[in-house]
């Protein structure tokens, strides 16, 4: 393969698109970790569930409506999971929290196998966004631009909510000191539910916009959760901005890695993670 | 000099918790550190014992510069501390609490074939007797009363056979009777082991009763020092402790 500027640029753009998906997926994980102190190992499984639901909805009604329906359905699923399961282990320590997520992963992935079967599910890019356009000699897929656009909007909205609104300041207060926030008379358990639902909703948005350009298999949950962990570690727990930067870095490194050493593209990510962990264990953008 | 702190500084954000503190302790003395709430006593303890690192200044112990060393190294050199807020091993029994300290003091941490419970039984039991917890040896530390947890706190520190024992408010949160008892115990133990003591305390009666020398801390600075009678007659100390009443 000949390496030139235009190839490099299109790789960076497609990397950015994937990076935004990683960001959407991980910011749910990182904010749930930051606020509740719970690592939701099952985050990847929720992503997978959302992906398969998108498959069904997109085939039945169409991709554009799935963009609305799937996140709503997953927010509902998130609410049930939080109220019925996670809420009961907030005080039980990390061992039980992780074990509970492992249990949920088993149930979800078996459910997916039961309902959708073993064969991979491929989406197709909607006609409107098919194809590429030519920009300064670079070939850029329209869908990548769509992903970058829609996720940027979500990121801006999210950061505005978190830093400018009242609910945002309450959430940030929970990250700093949950007990104190409770002491101020704030319904912390309500905030927890809200954050959890939002986190799962974000994973669902990520899954839905990733659906047309990726292929869904039963092992995808593990793949995604590892990436989300890497993003969280590099970005720092509870930091949305950190998740954005880390998601982009990981995806772009992945893209360029394919260019250099195709077999070991994901090994580069692990190297970054190990390096961050070694030199800055609290993450690059940790608020703590 | 046995133990010396020179021009120690530590800030948290904009707040100078320790501001150019210098003090020294003579071998064999019971030396007290007093001051109102928030004077920076615990911060100074943390700096001396390696819990946090100072921004500037030196800590010299038995002629050796121990500034910025880790808590583990400093403890190994012979400075053991107890904590103001109970900090024991809650799910281990009282016996086991002392045992882990004794095993570590004997540098057996990497020994993996001797049955631990058979090592140094007499020594551990004598420690338990000394701190008055022999009858509660098989209770979980977390289930002890607050007063007894504070005793255990001191016992763990003493099990390290320190040459300098740093006691951070050993009587905090105790009733008057309990205070009297634990003070007797501590006095007896200090006499028995002959170790030098740096004592941080709120209760002035306690201080005046036991100390040989007193350092007064306010807003992170040493504002007075001297023997008990010096401090008792010190105008400034009166002002600090009695607030704006004069």
């Amino acid at each position, binding site marked *: 393969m000949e390496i030139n500027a235009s190839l490099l640029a299109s790789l960076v753009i497609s990397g950015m698109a994937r990076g935004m998906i990683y960001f959407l997926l991980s910011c749910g994980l990182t904010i749930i*970790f930051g606020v509740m102190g719970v*690592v939701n190992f099952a985050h990847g499984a929720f992503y997978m569930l959302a992906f398969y639901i998108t498959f069904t909805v997109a085939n039945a009604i169409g991709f554009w409506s799935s963009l609305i329906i799937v996140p709503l359905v997953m927010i509902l699923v998130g609410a049930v999971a939080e109220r019925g*399961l996670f809420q*009961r282990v907030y005080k*039980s320590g*990390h*061992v*039980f929290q*992780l*074990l*509970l997520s*492992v*249990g*949920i*992963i*088993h*149930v*979800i*992935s*078996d*459910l997916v196998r*039961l309902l959708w079967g073993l064969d991979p599910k491929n989406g197709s890019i909607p006609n409107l966004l098919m194809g590429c356009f030519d920009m300064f000699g670079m070939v850029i897929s329209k869908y990548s631009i769509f992903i970058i656009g829609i996720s940027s909007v979500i990121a801006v909205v999210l950061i505005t909510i978190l830093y400018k609104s009242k609910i945002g300041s309450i959430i940030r207060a929970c990250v700093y000191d949950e007990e104190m926030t409770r002491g101020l008379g704030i319904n912390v358990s309500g905030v927890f539910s809200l954050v959890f639902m939002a986190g799962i909703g974000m994973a669902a948005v990520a899954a839905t916009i990733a659906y047309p350009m990726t292929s869904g298999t039963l092992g995808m949950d*593990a793949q995604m959760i*590892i990436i989300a*962990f*890497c993003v969280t570690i590099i970005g720092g727990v509870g930091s949305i901005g950190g998740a954005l930067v880390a998601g982009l870095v990981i995806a772009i490194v992945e893209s360029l890695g394919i260019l250099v050493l195709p077999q*070991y593209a994901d*090994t580069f990510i*692990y190297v970054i993670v190990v390096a961050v*962990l070694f030199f800055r264990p609290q993450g690059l953008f940790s608020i703590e | 000099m046995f133990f010396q702190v020179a021009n120690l500084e530590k800030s948290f954000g904009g707040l100078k918790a320790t501001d150019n503190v210098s003090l020294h302790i003579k071998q064999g003395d019971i030396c007290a550190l007093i001051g109102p709430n928030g004077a920076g006593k615990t911060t100074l303890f943390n700096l001396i014992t390696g*819990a946090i690192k100072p921004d500037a200044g030196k800590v010299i112990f038995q002629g050796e510069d121990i500034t910025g060393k880790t*808590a*583990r190294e400093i*403890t190994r050199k012979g400075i*053991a501390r107890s904590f103001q807020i109970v*900090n*024991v*091993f*809650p799910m*281990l029994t009282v016996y086991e609490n002392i*045992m*882990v300290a004794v*095993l*570590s*003091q004997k540098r*057996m*941490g*990497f*020994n*993996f*074939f*001797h*049955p*631990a*419970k058979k*090592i140094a039984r007499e020594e551990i039991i004598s420690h338990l007797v000394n701190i008055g917890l022999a009858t509660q040896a098989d209770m979980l530390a977390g289930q002890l009363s607050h007063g007894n947890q504070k005793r255990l706190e001191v016992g*763990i*520190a003493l*099990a*390290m056979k320190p040459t300098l024992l740093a006691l951070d408010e050993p009587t905090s949160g105790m009733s008057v009777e309990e205070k009297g008892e634990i003070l007797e115990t501590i006095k007896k133990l200090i006499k028995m082991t002959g170790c030098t003591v740096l004592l941080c305390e709120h209760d002035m009666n306690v201080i005046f009763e036991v100390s040989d020398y007193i350092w007064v801390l306010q807003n992170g600075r040493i504002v007075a020092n001297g023997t008990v009678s010096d401090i008792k007659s010190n105008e400034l100390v009166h002002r600090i402790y009695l607030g704006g009443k004069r």
Partner: protein
Amino acid sequence: MRGKRSFVWAVGCIIAIFLIGGPFILPNFWTWVVIEIMVMSLAAMSVNFLLGYAGCLSFGHSAFYAAAAYATAIMMTKTGMNQYQVLLLAPLTAAILGAVIGLLVSRLYAFYYAIMTCAFAMIVWSIIRRLPGLTGGDTGIVGIQFTGLLNGMTNIYYFTLAVIILCGLILWVIGNSPLGWSLRAIRENPDRSAFISIDVIKQRCLALVISSFFCGVAGSLHVVYSFGAFPELAFWTKSGDFVTICILGGINSFLGPIVGSVALILLETMITSVTLYWPMVLGIIICAVVFFMPEGIMGFVKKFGWEKVNEQKS
């Protein structure tokens, strides 16, 4: 007290007779199941050494299990080494991997520890799949035959039993040594441990090395009874199974992991014979353990069983 002791002795004797007579009493199928249970017990004991004593939750033990399994398989097929040498060297491979990972993760606590060990296991998993020349890629290495003492079901059974008992004893001795007690101190209160001169990071690292060695022994035995090594051994779900077994059995008990693996593998064997949806059942079991039996089976037995026995006998 006497009633309790004689009850324990009686149960112990029955289990001992059962284990010694194993292959002659049980049908073949169940003998293999017992072998699997034994190997799983050892792996879970190694995980519990870390979790129960040092308080470190590892989701990465599949890496050590797989590393030793692949080391065994590769040395058996690609080198002309003696099979006993191979079985001694393979767990050392796991221990070396444990030391490397330990250097990186021993500073971390709780979630960070769990996540990072898990990430390392996934790295091992992806490396195994990327090196088809050495590891056979996705299909793994199959058809490894041991000879002599390790040939045939009965021999494998007794060999495994002997190794498990030996390793169990060693783990018991280490657990009750000064090292084991320092680890308990670290589990209880790492900050205070530093103030009694315990080298927290080094000790946690050493705990991981010991644990990975014994997990490696289990991994090697896996090759002995299944005649192969497969990439799934490194997948994180395997680590998840180990942790599940520990907690199902009870992490505060030395015998917990054994009880847990007996319970889990018996359940798995029975349920998979009825339905394909074992993972779903497993997931529900895990949730039930988390909510209703956090002390595990051994905790349950201690709380209710012992008291009942005492009531009846006294």
